[in-house]
């Protein structure tokens, strides 16, 4: 094996760091956008065709650009935000641009599952739009939201593997540079095994939390 234990641990840390940080930032962007996508649609709480259409189209555009292209395309922006266009921190910017719109869609989907009758009941009891969103929509969708966000985290783990292209490091980078390009099968198997365990762990945790929050 051409790598030692510390390199693998470092790569694992980079993966966790990229995934974790980009997830938090993506959630900050995706949650409000997801809520807006729901409440501005026709016949909903704060119906607003213009806002909905713009959001809808912009999100679709970001969602249709392949991650590897997106990563390169926003390099100038990355440089403004992080000060550099290479490295782990620099990889977080494109990851957020990738996962933010994705999370917005996932959240939209979960919130749309909430029974319209519940919203009607909330309106009938004199709830304000903010109260409806935070006391009715989100609590009722919470279990489904947790599962949706689990999907987003797993997606981010996958996407972060490509961050090697801009020197982001991480397990995926290790697998490509040592396992694939230098034919080190053991490194390849090891990194993939760690990723498998990681994804399994995240998914199990997500399932558990989703059950926990079903009733609050």
């Amino acid at each position, binding site marked *: 094996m051409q790598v030692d234990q510390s390199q693998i641990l470092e790569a694992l840390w980079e993966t966790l760091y990229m995934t974790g940080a980009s997830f938090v930032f993506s959630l900050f962007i995706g949650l409000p956008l997801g809520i807006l996508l729901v409440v501005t649609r026709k016949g909903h709480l704060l119906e607003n065709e213009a806002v909905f259409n713009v959001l809808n189209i912009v999100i679709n555009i970001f969602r249709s650009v392949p991650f590897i292209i997106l990563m390169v395309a926003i390099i100038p922006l990355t440089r403004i935000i992080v000060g550099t266009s290479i490295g782990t921190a620099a990889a977080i910017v494109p990851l957020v641009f990738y996962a933010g719109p994705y999370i917005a869609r996932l959240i939209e989907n979960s919130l749309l599952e909430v*029974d319209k*009758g*519940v919203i*009607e*009941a909330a*309106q*009938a*009891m*004199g*709830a*304000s739009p903010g*109260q409806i969103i935070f*006391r*009715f929509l989100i*609590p*009722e969708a*919470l*279990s489904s939201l947790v599962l949706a966000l689990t999907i987003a985290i797993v997606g981010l783990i996958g996407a972060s593997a490509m961050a090697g292209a801009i020197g982001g490091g991480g397990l995926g980078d290790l697998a490509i540079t040592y396992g694939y390009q230098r034919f080190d099968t053991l490194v390849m198997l090891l990194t993939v095994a760690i990723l498998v365990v990681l994804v399994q762990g995240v998914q199990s945790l997500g399932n558990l939390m989703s059950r926990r*929050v*079903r*009733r*609050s």
Partner: protein
Amino acid sequence: MIQFEAVKKTYVSGKQQVHALNGIDLTVETGEIYGVIGFSGAGKSSLIRTVNLLERPSTGRVLIHGEDISTLSARKIRDTRKDIGMIFQHFNLLNSKTVHHNIAMPLILAKTPKAEIDRKVAELLEFVGLADQAKKYPDQLSGGQKQRIGIARALATNPSILLCDEATSALDPQTTQSILDLLRRINQEYNITILLITHEMGVIREICDKVAVLEEGRVIEQGSVFEVFSNPQHATTKRFVRSVMNDELPDSLLEQIRHNDGTRPIYRVQFTGNSVGQPFMSRVSREFQLDLNVLFGNITELQGIPYGNLIVEFDGAHAEIDRALASIRNDNIQVEEVQQHAG
């Protein structure tokens, strides 16, 4: 008090216009239980939703205690909604929250202190008969229990008006009865005005004081439940009345009528209120040398007033029969001959 004044509601989808409400004029007096009945698509649902502005009338006005709330600010509208409770066919409870939390919700929204909320929720749970269910979740309850929770939630803010949107349509007959009893208690004990919509005439008969029949967005008939049931005018109203008070003659009876060739004429006798107490049959039989034979009939109660409908065969001389009929009519009992071909 709720007043509908020339209320119209038109939905536009593409180039098509759907007129859900076509000029509704109705007045629901304070303390009344007012029922609106109609087949699906008649506009009931739109009508009830104009009261708390879940639907805005396209034209016309809805006045709540004399005030047109559609002219108010969003905040004032929300305040008014707290005075108008609403319950739903599918209950619309929060499945992620306990029974206690569900009932507390309107109070939480109004930022009521916690101790006050706990006291009020306990009182409401007691009132709807579910004091031991506070910690359960809606999916652990039966339909009837869920509707009781819905009712308790609607009453949390001490509203003066309760809107019932097909509140018993998803329940079995026995549960329906118990929910209707509860609604009547709410009306009597708290003097809450109730406006309900339904497609079940049984619900109207059971608890309503007044009824309006809705068809294609228009009120085709309205009045006290007693008037409408005992003397329905419109064909649709007659169908609804017939659905709970069958006055159609059975086939065997029609066969018999067809064969008697008018030798023993058959009359439909409708008596109401005080006339029920009178033994008119035996009196007529004694006074006029007639034999009276009841072929079919039912007696029921509308708004606490007895109401009867009998099909009676008169056997005797024609002159005697005519005198007898005059005497019966004199007692404010309606009599009409049953046509031999018709029912």
